[in-house]
């Protein structure tokens, strides 16, 4: 019996494990573009069904640390490649099993099954070896290594391996001859007859003059056999009846060869592999990732050189450059009020804030050179829906109902991200409603990002911090996509445009001749 502390590479404790895997993304995924991010990360790994892992956040600091440790171990390139190679073998194994399932002739199915087991044994042995030489720091890998080593040394595994090898070796000794004449085929063992092709080649050797066309025909090698091949194989099986009897027995006996824990590891480790491979895309162009400090008490948060992971992915594939932004909240500060010119990166900033917190909550490194993030209990987003609803009153009402629902569900430890709401009413109304909502948020002491055109909110209280999207001073039409901590004057932007058209006060004085 194998005894170990190992539970899972994703969860240290059994009670943390996901009770019921869900394929439904959290509601805020679309607003924060997290759906795009997770799609990109899990692309090409459908067979592992990784999304449930990415849909379940952890609410325990230690559970996050457990994953950080594993991530850090995997940042060792050698170990990472070893894990990938393990995954590749397991994938090959599954493909072999699937193929065995599809085929019709018994000895062919059995051969594919045998190969699958051989690949599996190799995968396990290699991984044990690779983990043994690896300098592991994480609890997760440490425990798993112990588990796997024990398994690889168990009778169950070693006898499976020995049988497999013996059978492969035996089958490779099979060599037979066919004599084809008219419509008859004779099958018998090979008796060291000479290679006639070589013999003929030798005779004509003296005419060789440099390279000539290759006349060899490439036969389409279907995996399936035709009935003539199958008949031949049956006769070969009679010629070598011992070997094929062993093959039959082997397959009957070893139907359940796969170790469950190892199989689960193969799936779960892909959570890390997928994420780190995604991260590598960004690191390659000089963008940074870090393991955030996670706090569940203090609400001081910061991130330097952060970026929107979904947008950056798009920009990189277009070979465009990515603009990073910094933020911090200290002391009593809780709320970012983001204003400034449109298309200047305000929404991106809001999304980044949400993405960072969510990714941190599933134990992943986040965009940025250094970060401290809050371990929230619930994350709410309220983004304006793109389609314009005809009934303006309806939309305003809808906005308010949504914000009411959010605020009534939110706790002291929640995060709220609001993007351009209350646009469908008069400014006076909007200011009034916004202030009311802001009061509630402040009262709940929520962490919040609020993108708005209502500058009054920026200096609402000591809890609010004003962030402004910026433009290139000489050419206001150019956005920098930098969001900076600055009072929301709104004027500097207008002034720079005026300067550009020489419409400032001073300019006009000069231009207008008296």
């Amino acid at each position, binding site marked *: 019996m194998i005894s170990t502390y190992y539970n899972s590479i994703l969860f240290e404790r059994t009670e943390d494990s996901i009770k019921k895997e869900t394929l439904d993304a959290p509601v805020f995924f679309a607003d924060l573009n997290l759906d795009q991010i997770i799609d990109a990360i899990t692309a090409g790994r459908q067979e592992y069904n990784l999304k449930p892992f990415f849909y379940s956040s952890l609410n325990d600091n230690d559970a996050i640390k457990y994953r950080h440790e594993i991530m850090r171990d995997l940042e060792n390139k050698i170990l990472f490649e070893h894990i990938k190679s393990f995954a590749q073998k397991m994938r090959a194994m599954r493909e072999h099993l699937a*193929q065995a399932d599809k*085929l019709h002739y018994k*000895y*062919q199915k059995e*051969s594919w099954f045998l*190969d699958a087991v051989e690949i599996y044994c190799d995968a396990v042995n290699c991984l044990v070896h690779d983990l043994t030489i690896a300098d592991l720091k994480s609890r997760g890998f440490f425990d798993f290594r112990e588990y796997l080593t024990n398994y690889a040394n168990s009778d169950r595994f070693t006898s499976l391996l020995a049988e497999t090898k013996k059978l492969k070796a035996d*089958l*490779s000794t*099979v*060599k*037979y*001859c*066919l*004599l*084809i*004449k*008219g*419509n*008859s*085929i*004779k*099958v*018998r063992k*090979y*008796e060291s*007859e*000479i*290679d*006639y*092709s070589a*013999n*003929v*080649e030798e*005779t*004509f050797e*003296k*005419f*060789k*003059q440099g390279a*000539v*066309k*290759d*006349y*060899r*025909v490439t*036969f389409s*090698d279907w*995996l399936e*056999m*035709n*009935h*003539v*091949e199958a*008949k*031949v*194989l049956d*006769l*070969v099986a*009679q*010629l070598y009846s011992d070997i094929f009897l062993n093959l039959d027995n082997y397959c009957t006996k070893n139907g359940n060869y796969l170790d469950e824990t190892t199989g689960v590891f193969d799936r779960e480790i892909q959570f890390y592999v997928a994420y780190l491979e995604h991260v590598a895309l960004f690191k390659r162009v000089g963008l940074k990732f870090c393991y955030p400090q996670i706090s569940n008490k203090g609400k001081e948060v910061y991130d330097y050189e952060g970026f929107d992971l979904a947008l950056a992915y798009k920009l990189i594939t277009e070979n465009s450059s990515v603009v990073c932004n910094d933020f911090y909240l200290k002391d009593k500060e809780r709320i970012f009020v983001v204003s400034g010119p449109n298309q200047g990166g305000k929404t991106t900033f809001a999304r980044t804030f949400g993405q960072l917190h969510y990714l941190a909550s599933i134990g992943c490194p986040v965009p940025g050179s250094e970060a401290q993030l809050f371990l929230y209990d619930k994350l709410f987003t309220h983004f304006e829906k793109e389609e314009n609803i005809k009934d303006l009153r309806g939309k305003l009402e809808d906005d308010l109902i949504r914000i009411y629902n959010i605020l009534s569900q939110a706790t002291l430890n929640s995060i709220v991200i609001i993007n351009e709401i209350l646009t469908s009413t008069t400014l006076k109304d909007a200011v009034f409603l916004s202030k009311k909502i802001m009061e509630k948020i402040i009262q709940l002491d929520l962490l919040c990002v609020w993108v708005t055109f209502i500058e009054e909110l920026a200096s609402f209280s000591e809890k609010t911090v004003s962030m402004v999207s910026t433009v290139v001073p000489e050419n206001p039409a150019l956005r920098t996509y930098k969001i900076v901590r600055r009072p929301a004057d709104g004027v500097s932007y207008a002034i720079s445009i005026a300067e550009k058209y020489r419409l400032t006060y001073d300019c006009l004085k000069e231009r207008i001749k008296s």
Partner: protein
Amino acid sequence: MKAFLMYKDRDFDLQRRLPPNEQALTQDLELDTLFNAMALGDKFLFEVAEKAVLTGLNDDLGTILYRQHILKDCLKNSSIVRDIYDIAVESIESKKKSYWGWGFSKYPSSILYGSIEVLQIFVSMLKKLKNIADEHADKFESEGFTAFFAMLNKELSDEYFASIQNHLSELKFRDGVLISAELGKGNKGTNYMLRKSHDKKQSWMKRIFATKTPIYTFYISDRDESGARALSELNDRGLNLVANALAQSTDHILSFFTMLRTELAFYVGCLNLHGRLAQKGEPMSFPLPIAPGERRHSFNGLYDVCLALSLEQRVVGNDVNADNKDLMIITGANQGGKTTFLRSIGLSQLMMQCGMFAPAESFSSNVCDGLFSHYKREEDTTMKSGKLDEELSRMSNIVDNITSNSMLLFNESFAATNEREGSEIARQITSALLEKRIKVFFVTHLYEFAHGFYDKKMENVIFLRAERQSDGKRTFKLIEGEPLQTSYGEDLYNRIFGNTC
């Protein structure tokens, strides 16, 4: 098996790239006239002549002599050489005829049977070749032909012909096809290999009864079409390699015949040219090539072979001794034979270097590493550049490719500007070329340029002048002499317009 009739130790490569200035040379020396005389309307002979003449510049002294000797043998035994050439041509043609497209077949069995058929023809051709060798080898003296006949004798013995014949009949597989196989992925048969039964005399069936190993037999029923297809595929897998070997052997033998034809084509071309010139009574001689580092150029009765080929009457030959000269400046009367002379210099050099006879009573010169020509061209019709601009750009291309010990023929170059400037350009270019050990022949009207060199009284420069008799008639002969101020344009004017004054 190699013919080795162009090089002692390697094939003649028909795909070899021509020198980059091939077009200019062909145009300036009117090489097509020469090639046509060698080809007599045969496209293949033309192609080989062109390649051989133009790539001869890269061959060494030994190769020149090697070919000269072979060519002498050819001149002595022209009908035998033409017979061998015809065998090569016939072999190549017969393969083309029997080529039922099996070369592109997807079925090794049909590739195999097609190859056997072609090989039967090739074997009979090789036998013919062998017979000629047996009968006539002693009439040839050159190293090349001696080795060629010895090779045929050695490689194509009667026993060898017998063993080929044996294979060709065995490959018809009257006793069935024996194939070995192993188990591959998914226990599918793999590594199908054709095998030869142990005992030829004893049939397979008899052997079966003699041994104790079990043998299982099954039959594909007549109605089982997919079974029949599967069976013939198994058969084809077994035949794949041997079919390839046989098909490749036909290719190899074909390429032997092709090479033989190609290499002989050069000599057949020489025979054609020789016949033509001999008929006219023009002199020909085997030239004496000298190492490239030396400076030799001496000849008697050197004529422009292309002019000779296009005129009914005999042409005028020139005698010059320009040994130890690096620069030859040719001046003198218009239409006095300067261009013809310059062409004869280029042609004789090319002919010598590819191993041919020279169009002269006697000829000797140092081998050059490259031959370049820079001729005055027609006005550029594309309006892209001015004339001098165009000339200098061509000159620049030449400079990109030229090496020391090359030879450069200038024909009225750099005359597209006034004489002083043209002379200065010519002087600077020529001086630089001489320092780089390039042999220069310069036909020019640039008096300042020509006389400037004359005044320097350099040992390594020779001056030739188109001769003009006192009555103004041209002899088309060149004599050594100081460059003169006028090129007798007046003469020309007078001849054309008549002397009316």
